[in-house]
């Protein structure tokens, strides 16, 4: 049984359809990528899994439990954390307080909370130096690291990452992906949405391609990396 099982999911904003008949699985300890262009429905799909958008059709199951209509804050308790598109850190609160909020679902004892925060600072040393600064004073890359660290504070079993490379310089993107790489084998499954298909396919085990709200292709990332259709559409390489 997969950790996350999405079947036949349809998502809409009022009359505007964002995704239709999406089915996908994420297994334990697996890193899965979703690639697709602007407006393909990637963010909407993650919102459906995190509970911010109520599906019009289909189901979402998490470790066997039907969570299709569960409130978002309860899903965090079950072990789903989303690092949202555009980072969305709490700008007026300090780096440390952003992390405290990330653990809101967990009710850690004080010492446990401190230990959890220190662990994140070890993972992201740049954040440690800035622990008392308001998050709005961080650079884009640092905010992305904070968003990921904040999501990890709830000790998720499934981490959802929405375009961690968005708006970052290539060198910072490399740093961020290196950190994602280090999360492998820590008992966390990751579902990562990216427009940078190359990086996403390199870091993941499997991948799905989403176009106009539908999954059009899926397979092992290593295979997709060499698939001519992917190379033409998402890796900027022409046929032949």
């Amino acid at each position, binding site marked *: 049984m997969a950790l996350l099982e999405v079947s036949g999911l349809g998502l809409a904003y009022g009359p505007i359809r964002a995704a239709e008949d999406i089915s996908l699985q994420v297994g334990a300890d697996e890193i899965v990528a979703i690639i697709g262009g602007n407006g393909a429905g990637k963010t909407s799909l993650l919102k459906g899994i995190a509970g911010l958008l109520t599906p019009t059709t289909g189901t979402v199951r998490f470790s066997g439990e039907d969570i299709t209509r569960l409130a978002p*804050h309860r899903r*965090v308790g079950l072990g789903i954390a*989303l690092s*949202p598109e555009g980072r*969305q850190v709490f700008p007026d609160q300090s780096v440390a307080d952003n992390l405290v*909020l990330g653990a*809101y679902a967990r009710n850690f004892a004080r010492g446990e909370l401190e230990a959890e925060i220190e662990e994140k600072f070890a993972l992201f040393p740049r954040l440690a130096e800035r622990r008392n600064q308001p998050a709005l004073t961080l650079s884009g890359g640092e905010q992305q690291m904070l968003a990921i660290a*904040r999501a990890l504070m*709830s000790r998720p079993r499934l981490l959802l990452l929405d375009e961690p490379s968005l708006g970052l310089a290539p060198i910072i993107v490399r740093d961020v992906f290196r950190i994602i790489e280090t999360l492998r084998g820590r008992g966390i499954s990751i579902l990562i949405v990216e427009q940078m298909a190359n990086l996403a396919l390199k870091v993941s085990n499997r991948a799905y391609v989403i176009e106009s709200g539908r999954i059009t292709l899926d397979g092992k990332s290593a295979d997709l990396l060499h698939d001519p259709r992917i190379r033409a559409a998402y890796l900027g390489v022409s046929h032949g």
Partner: protein
Amino acid sequence: MEAYVQALLSGLAVGGIYALIALSFSITFTTTRTLNFAQGEFVSFGAFVGVTALLVLTGTASLSLTYPFALVVAGVVAGVVGILVFVLAVRPFAGKPGMSWVMSTIGFGIILQSAGLALWGPAPAKLPGPFGEGIIRIAGAGVRPQEVLILVAAIVILFGFEAVMQHTRLGKATRAVAHSPDVASLMGINVPVVMMGAFAASSALAGVSGVLIAPISTASLYMGLGFALKAFAGAIIGGLDNPRGCIYGGFMLGVVESYVGLWHSQWREIAVFLLIILVLAIRPNGIFGARTLQKV
């Protein structure tokens, strides 16, 4: 000279009431992007709950013990009714297009006032302050002890609020909801419960303000509206989305009003609203405001 000190002190006292109510507007606005237009009725309602609490306790203890009790009872009862406002008049409409919550909260205020009239009748009630009616002298100026009490109570409550918001888990969660309910829910915060709590706190502040002001105003079921309007003006001047700005705006309004009253009391209201128009012409989001109002 004494007249100026006196005007300053009573301006600060009334300003303290404006500041508390202005803050109460800001609390629901920042967290839910809605306002409770029944806030004035909550001020009156709080005062009468306070009067009733004192009446029940008459003869059991001195007023300096029963008055704080009346403050707490008014705060708790108003807070509970505030939860009703959220559940019945705001939650069904929040996040939907349109401004139905404006009408539904006004309607709730009318119901609250009618219920109050049925319970207590239309006559004004007497709510004695704990330190009596005498005049105390500060720098030569005569002030009523209740005015000093209001000022001290307002400052304590405002600092307490600030401390909770900055340093507690609940305060941080509330600020997270104020920034973005969606992102807050991704932290595991139960957003509807936080919003309900914001309405409870906001209404409690209004209720407590009623008990504080009643001894120097006339405790009638109609008294709240005037205070709430001025407090709302204070909130607009300070910036509705900035709790601290709202507090400054409330105090500022009280002092300005008091000084203009010293000069010509019939100019008081005109001066106050000219001030608002002037401030908004220069700073459309209030002196300390940043975001626009159109986010609802």
